[in-house]
């Protein structure tokens, strides 16, 4: 999976990575006299004293209820074991008793940092199951919402990650920007309180007047504002020293563990569902898929920042190319019709901000699905945590968890 593997897709692999040496060289050039290394390195040597440390589920830097058991020797992590289930609500069983269209708002609560992309995966699965095609306008709008949601989710990640590492300005700036993006969703959804907007067959309602202009203004000004928020972080030497070379996830290991999303792409695997298996309007817009090289925490962060930039680009294209027409297809036929089997099944996935979010639906033609399984990207990405923690320092655990951008709501369901 090195960068030389075959023809690159039009992914525009952006030169994102830095090596530890390059960072240290840059630092040495700036500092007049190098600071003497404190006893840190000596303290990090294994001393044969293993201790089991518990992290979470209440911890200021663990976002969500994740519990970790880490075995540490001195300052080095030997192994770390995530313990899930603290937010397990039994949603899959609830779905078996909920009519298809009513499940949409419930999927909001899975990855609650990015409800629109989860909604999109679900309605796409229902449409495939029931043979409905959403009208073109709805497909463009859903793409637009998904990209706005990607921006909002990554901004939340940026805020949390920066705050965890002690770089405070991006925390406030990113949340302020996220507020603007959520404001757009709020204006759109406020017309029907409680609706999620997306429906099997399209959207519940069209855009209110003036929304397109507001969205265009936000998307147009976004790259500059992103530079303002993320610039402090990306240019910060302490942040680079803390993330370059940290928690390297090899490409083969990432694929084997089922990791998807920015964490996978940072390891050099140019796999993005929007490009490889396009859905909605992604086949009609131009964008680049940022890919890292070293698979370290630094690359994972850079990939997300660049994805936000590309997302703004997609938003503008969706606005420019927005077709006229209805936003909801004919109502779905009740009950699935047979295709020879009494049970119909489908799996549909989209590229969410955290990775591949998919729904496996089994239906026997009833009003509610027989089985609705959520393929949650965070569930798989979490399995990479022990891999990237092994051998790192305890103090870096916060940066490592942050670099994976996990959502416990979807991992635990």
């Amino acid at each position, binding site marked *: 999976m090195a960068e030389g593997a*075959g023809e690159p897709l039009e992914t525009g692999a952006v030169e994102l990575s830095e090596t530890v040496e390059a960072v240290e060289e840059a630092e040495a050039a700036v500092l007049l006299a190098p600071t003497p290394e404190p006893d840190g390195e000596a303290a990090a040597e294994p001393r044969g004293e293993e201790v089991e440390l518990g992290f979470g589920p209440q911890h200021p830097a663990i976002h969500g209820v994740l519990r970790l058991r880490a075995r540490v020797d001195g300052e080095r992590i030997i192994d770390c074991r995530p313990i899930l289930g603290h937010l397990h609500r039994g949603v899959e069983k609830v779905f078996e008793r909920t009519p298809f269209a009513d499940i949409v708002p419930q999927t909001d609560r899975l990855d609650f940092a990015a409800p629109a992309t989860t909604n999109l995966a679900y309605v796409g699965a229902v449409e495939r199951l029931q043979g409905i095609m959403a009208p073109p306008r709805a497909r463009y709008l859903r793409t637009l919402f998904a990209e706005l949601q990607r921006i909002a989710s990554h901004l939340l990640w940026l805020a949390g990650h920066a705050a965890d590492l002690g770089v405070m300005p991006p925390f406030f700036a990113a949340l302020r920007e996220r507020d603007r993006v959520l404001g757009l969703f709020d204006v759109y959804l406020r017309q029907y309180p409680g609706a999620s907007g997306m429906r099997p067959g399209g959207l519940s309602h069209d855009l209110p007047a003036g929304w397109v202009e507001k969205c265009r203004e936000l998307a147009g000004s976004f790259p500059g504002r992103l530079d303002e928020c993320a610039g402090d972080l990306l240019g910060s030497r302490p942040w680079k020293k803390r993330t370059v070379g940290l928690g390297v996830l090899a490409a083969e290991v990432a694929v*084997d563990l089922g990791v998807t999303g920015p964490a996978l792409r940072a390891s050099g695997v140019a796999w993005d569902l929007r490009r490889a298996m396009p859905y909605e309007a992604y086949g009609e817009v131009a964008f680049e898929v940022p890919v890292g090289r070293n698979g370290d925490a630094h690359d994972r962060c850079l990939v997300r920042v660049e994805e936000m930039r590309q997302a703004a680009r997609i938003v503008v294209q969706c606005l420019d190319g927005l077709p006229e027409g209805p936003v909801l297809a004919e109502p779905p036929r009740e009950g699935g019709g047979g295709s020879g089997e009494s049970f119909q099944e489908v799996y549909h996935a989209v590229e969410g901000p955290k990775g591949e979010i998919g729904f496996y639906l089994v239906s026997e033609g009833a009003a509610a699905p027989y089985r609705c*399984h959520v393929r949650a990207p965070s569930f798989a990405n979490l399995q990479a945590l022990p891999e990237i923690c092994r051998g790192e320092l305890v103090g870096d655990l916060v940066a490592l968890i942050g670099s994976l951008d996990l959502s416990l709501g979807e991992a635990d369901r």
Partner: protein
Amino acid sequence: MSAPAVDPLLEALAGLGDAVESVRGAGDELTVRVRREAIAEVCAALKGEQGFTALVDLCGVDFPGREPRFEVVYHLLKPALVDPAAARRLRLKVAAGEGAPVPSVTSVWRAADACEREVWDLFGLRFEGHPELSRILLWEGFAGHPLRKDFPLEGTGTGASAAGTDGG
């Protein structure tokens, strides 16, 4: 388009002999029923020879009227980075029951580790050869397997918080 060439995947599946019980569907919904005992070999062949290097998902479904009652569903993915048109999904299904554990595929994809634990947790299906089959979403001491159709939604009252609460 010229006459489509025979799908190499279908050929490969045919070559697996009686390990494959049936092949249905097309495209991304291609669904293959595999004999329970042979699932690990079939997965290894699909990964090694056909390029299905990613296990996207592994879940269970309960069909109480059937014998055996459960189905384990595997969703595979062939990323095919070099030739994007070759990327595809594949679904495998295995019929399994309580007395009939399924061979674990953790030796093929490490992604199966957590997924098989979840199936054990929620359905009560064992996977032979799994390094550590323990509950993952629920807690030790929880009685029952909630995603079975005969398990009540509201539970049977063995809450972890049942002990040691004095209300408000």
